C-alpha cells in the first residue's frame, strides 16, 4: 500500500519524553482527522511502548528511542518504536497480562495488553542484548466519515 506520509524521531529515553512522544504521534495521525477515541488509543499505545523502552529496555539509565511513523493510502497508521537496550528474554511471557519483571516499581504488567487492545496489530521483535522493536498498526477513520473533533 502506497505510503502517503512518514517521519522518524529519535529521542533520549527520558521519562519526561513520554508525553512528548505520544503527542507527536497523535499530531501526525491527526492529519487524517480520526475520532478523539482513536487518537487517545494511539496515544496510550505509544505511551506504553515508549515507557517499556525507558524502564525495561534501558533500565532508566538513558539510551535512545527511535520512533518511525508511516501513513498509508488506506488510512493505516504504522508506529515502530525501537530501542537498543537489554531486549526481552521470553517474549511470550512478557506479553502475558499482569506479567512484570519489575513489581518493585509497581509495574502493572498490562502494557502489552493495552497496546493489543488499542491497536489493530502489535508485533514485537527482540533479541537479548540487542534491543526491542515494537511495530503497531491501526486503521484510522477519516473526517470524511463523519467530521470529528480532535483534541491532542
Amino acid at each position, binding site marked *: 500500500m502506497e505510503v502517503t506520509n512518514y517521519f522518524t524521531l529519535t529521542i533520549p529515553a527520558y*521519562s*519526561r519524553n*513520554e*508525553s512528548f512522544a505520544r503527542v507527536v504521534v497523535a499530531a501526525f495521525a491527526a492529519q487524517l482527522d480520526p475520532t478523539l*477515541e482513536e487518537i*487517545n488509543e494511539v*496515544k*496510550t499505545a505509544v*505511551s*506504553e511502548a515508549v*515507557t517499556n523502552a*525507558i*524502564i525495561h529496555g534501558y533500565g532508566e539509565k538513558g539510551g535512545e528511542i527511535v520512533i518511525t511513523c508511516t501513513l498509508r493510502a488506506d488510512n493505516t497508521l504504522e508506529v515502530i518504536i525501537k530501542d537498543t537496550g537489554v531486549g526481552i528474554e521470553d517474549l511470550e511471557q512478557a506479553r502475558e497480562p499482569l506479567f512484570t519483571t519489575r513489581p518493585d*516499581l*509497581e*509495574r*502493572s*504488567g*498490562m*502494557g502489552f*495488553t*493495552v497496546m493489543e*487492545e488499542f491497536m489493530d496489530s502489535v508485533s514485537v521483535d527482540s533479541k537479548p542484548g540487542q534491543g526491542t522493536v515494537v511495530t503497531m498498526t491501526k486503521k484510522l477513520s477519516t473526517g470524511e466519515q463523519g467530521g470529528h473533533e480532535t483534541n491532542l
Partner: protein
Amino acid sequence: MKITKQQSGDILVVGVSGELDHHSSALLKSEIGAELDKGGVRHIILDLRELTFMDSSGLGVLLGRYKELGKWQGKMLAFGLQPVVEKMFRLTGLNQLIPVHPDLASCYKALGV
C-alpha cells in the same frame, strides 16, 4: 499533572488533573504516601474529573496505593472519569477493585458518611 488533597475525617479526597503516566506517577505516589504516613487516613476518594490521560503506569501506582489501604481494610473509590480513563479502568479490571461512582456525594455515601 496537578494534585489536590483534602481530608475529611478519615477520608482523603485526592484530585488528579492532567496526564498520569510513568513520569508523573512518582509524584502521585509520594503525595499520597506523605498523607498515609501521617496516619489518620483510612479511605481514599479519587477525583478524576480533570484527568485527561492515564496509561498502565498510572494503573500501577493506583493499584499500589489500593494495596496500602488494604493493610487496614481501607477502600479506594473514584468518580468523574473521562471516557478515555474510564476505558482503561474497564479494560484492565481496575473498576473491580476501585469502584467508580458518578459523583463525590455517592462516594461518601458508599463509605457510610
